[in-house]
């Protein structure tokens, strides 16, 4: 009997002490932000605008999924933004310039991200270069390569358009739900990009919660030395985590190319910071061992809702950065307060 009782108390404690608290807090914050903007502007809570927010979250959300795993290992990945761009350019090259079928182009894009992530992982785990430096290097390399590759055709840096393959754009911008929704609401459509993000999030949550990779991700972040002493090949698993991050960057690259109907080689710098911000707002601890996929998705929504709302309020874009920055600091500060209490 006594055992059962304690079990209950310990679970209750852990809800208040663990990242669940931060998640609840983040979710509450999202609702508050939403309500405030609804109150302030009649244009905010419209179906079209909500779809806009969903769509704006999709790419950053997918990037942030990969970053979540990496931050849970107490690492960091600064390269996800430019790796995303490189993947987009590779997809553009494959489809538009080499005329390969769209599915092949998609695979090329995702593979590009995976390889970049794999290299990150190898550099970190074998050459023992700190993640910050290793991925900073990869960030610059990927940016450079994206620019170089985009000059292959014309000799100057130019976006690669997918005008010959309209189906590539429809991949993310059409909606699988249209046949059901259209008869009821002809002007309302939730693009596939949103479903892809949620799908990717489900896969990520599955990997984190149910697979060996997820378990070792948490274990390494919680106590890397203990994990090594338990006989886990930490170098290999860490490499795998960065490669997984790369897969999500590659997917994000394909998504953004499809959404913009072009691969923009100069794009991508700054995306890594939005992704890291989403992860941190979602309650993942930068010191490792703690974090959830749901939290990250909520974090990504907080960022895009804020950006969207501020734009609707006609706040200049420059100020949107300031607000996002303040939110990141606030989120981490709340996390620190919570830790100090427990």
């Amino acid at each position, binding site marked *: 009997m006594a055992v059962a*009782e304690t079990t209950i108390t310990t679970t209750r404690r852990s809800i208040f002490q663990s990242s669940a608290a931060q998640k609840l807090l983040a979710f509450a914050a999202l609702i508050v932000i939403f309500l405030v903007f609804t109150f302030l502007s009649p244009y905010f809570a419209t179906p079209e605008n909500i779809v806009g927010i969903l769509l704006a979250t999709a790419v950053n959300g997918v990037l942030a999924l990969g970053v979540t795993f990496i931050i849970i290992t107490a690492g960091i990945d600064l390269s996800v933004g430019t790796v995303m761009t490189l993947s987009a350019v590779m997809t553009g090259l494959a489809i538009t310039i080499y005329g390969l079928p769209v599915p092949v182009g998609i695979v090329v894009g995702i593979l590009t991200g995976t390889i970049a992530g794999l290299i990150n992982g190898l550099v970190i785990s074998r050459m023992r270069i700190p993640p910050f430096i290793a991925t900073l290097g990869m960030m610059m390399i990927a940016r450079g390569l994206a620019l170089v590759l985009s000059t292959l055709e014309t000799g100057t840096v130019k976006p690669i358009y997918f005008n010959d393959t309209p189906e590539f754009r429809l991949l993310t911008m059409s909606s699988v739900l249209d046949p059901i929704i259209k008869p009821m609401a002809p002007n309302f459509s939730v693009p596939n990009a949103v479903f892809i993000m949620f799908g990717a999030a489900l896969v990520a949550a599955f990997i984190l919660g149910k697979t060996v990779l997820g378990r070792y991700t948490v274990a390494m972040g919680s106590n890397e030395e203990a994990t090594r002493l338990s006989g886990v090949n930490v170098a290999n698993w860490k490499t795998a985590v960065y490669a997984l991050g790369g897969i999500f960057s590659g997917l994000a690259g394909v998504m953004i190319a499809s959404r913009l109907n072009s691969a923009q080689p100069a794009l991508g710098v700054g995306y890594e910071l939005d992704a890291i911000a989403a992860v941190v707002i979602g309650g993942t601890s930068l010191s490792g061992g703690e974090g959830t996929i749901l939290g990250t998705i909520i974090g990504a929504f907080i960022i895009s809702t804020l950006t969207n709302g501020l734009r609707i309020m006609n706040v200049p874009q420059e100020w949107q950065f300031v607000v996002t920055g303040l939110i990141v600091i606030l989120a981490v500060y709340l996390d620190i307060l919570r830790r100090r209490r427990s």
Partner: protein
Amino acid sequence: MGDVLLKMEGIDKSFPGVHALDKAQFELRAGEVHTLVGENGAGKSTLMKILAGIYAKDAGTIRYQGKEIDIPNPRAAQLLGISMIHQELNLMPHLTLAQNVFVGREPRGVLPFMLDEKKINAQTQALFDAMHLRLDPRTKAAQLTVAKQQMVEIAKAVSFNSQILIMDEPTAALTESEIEELFRIIRQFRAKGVGIVYISHRLEELKQISDRITVMRDGRYVDTVDAATVAIDRIISMMVGRTIYESAPEVPEHPNEEIVLEVRGLNRGTAIRDVSFRLKKGEILGFAGLMGAGRTEVARAIFGADPLDSGEIYIKGQKVEIKSPRDAVQHGIGYLSEDRKRYGLALGLDVEANIALASFDQFTNAFGIVKAGDTRQTAERYVNTLAIKTPGIQQRVRNLSGGNQQKVVIGKWLTADTDVLIFDEPTRGIDVGAKSEIYRLLNDLAAQGKSIIMISSELPEILRMSHRIVVMCEGRITGELSAAEATQEGIMRLATQRTVMVATDEAPTNNGSSVEQK
């Protein structure tokens, strides 16, 4: 006792600057508890870490179950049935107990990359049941007390079907009743024919639990004796071996009664509870207690590194406010952390810079420019007076041995003109020869009129060095002993004297998964 399970012979191991093992040997039989004793730095842990695949040996042979084997990594050791429970606990606080027990070899689910959480929990539960441990496998490791975490580590070790179980100072942080529980479990495994290596500093335990005792000294094998017949005195003389630190406490004949530091009613959460004491001029005041007794916390609080809930500090009769280490330094208090590499030294800087680090005010002119000549002179003076072995004052501190690093820290605080020096485990990680030099230095400092608080977990050290001994347990001072009346047993009794109030604090702990009080 069964057959010989393991024979290690001629094991050699060197680390930069230290010859840790010199032709060490060790034998273990099935179904015996074989205790390995020796002073800090004798090489016990190093020898066992070689057996557990954590260090590679430089030379020597390991024969296990009749075959010569090679143990390249911890995984290989586990697969051979050799498990080690480390001195510093090795659980992952964010994972549950079951996840901790099975990390690295989780039962898989429908697909080979999926986890079978149910099976993990069920197998762990079975394991706990077999050991009569009342713990819930789904509890997060962070929520357990140190003692319970240790039980989980043992459960993890035995779940490998270990033939050899190595325990490195398992009782260092345990209470009497927890030690009883540990011994019960150890006897349980001995009866099943497991060979148990038990490393301990606590000689009074040895006779209770061991079958045989091997003594090591300075990385060498001394002797193996039968626990039932040997006298504790003989073990001690084998451990110490030479007359290296004969510096019995030189209690001044006319004790100086000037109170340099007085602390009244210090409180901080549950870590420090109503701590009051006085420190006299030229005195070495020993602070004894088990790990986590609150000694370091008291030192950090006096030094201004952690905030206090309440309490007063008097320096030479004057009440002072110490809100930060800077205040403490200005009042002449220096703190030498137990972890000197992390808190005591800037490892990448040279000897000169480290010695000047706490007192740059002295060495800068009105524009904040460092007067290089002055720092050089001061550094050279302390290198000479403290006999710091270094090629020069430009040497990076990282490249010095532990004993010399400690001297650099001492030099730093002497430069800062401190009257009260708090030494936290001053000889941790320092080899035997250098230890006696540190002891001599402490005695000299006291003789010169500096007042010293020495926190140490090594009872012989406390007994040899202190003029007076304060003993702490669970944040309280449980007693004060003069050098004359102090004995190891007396200190241990005070160090394990838990109060009734604490027990009621912990609420219902009559079951396995009590929550640690922080």
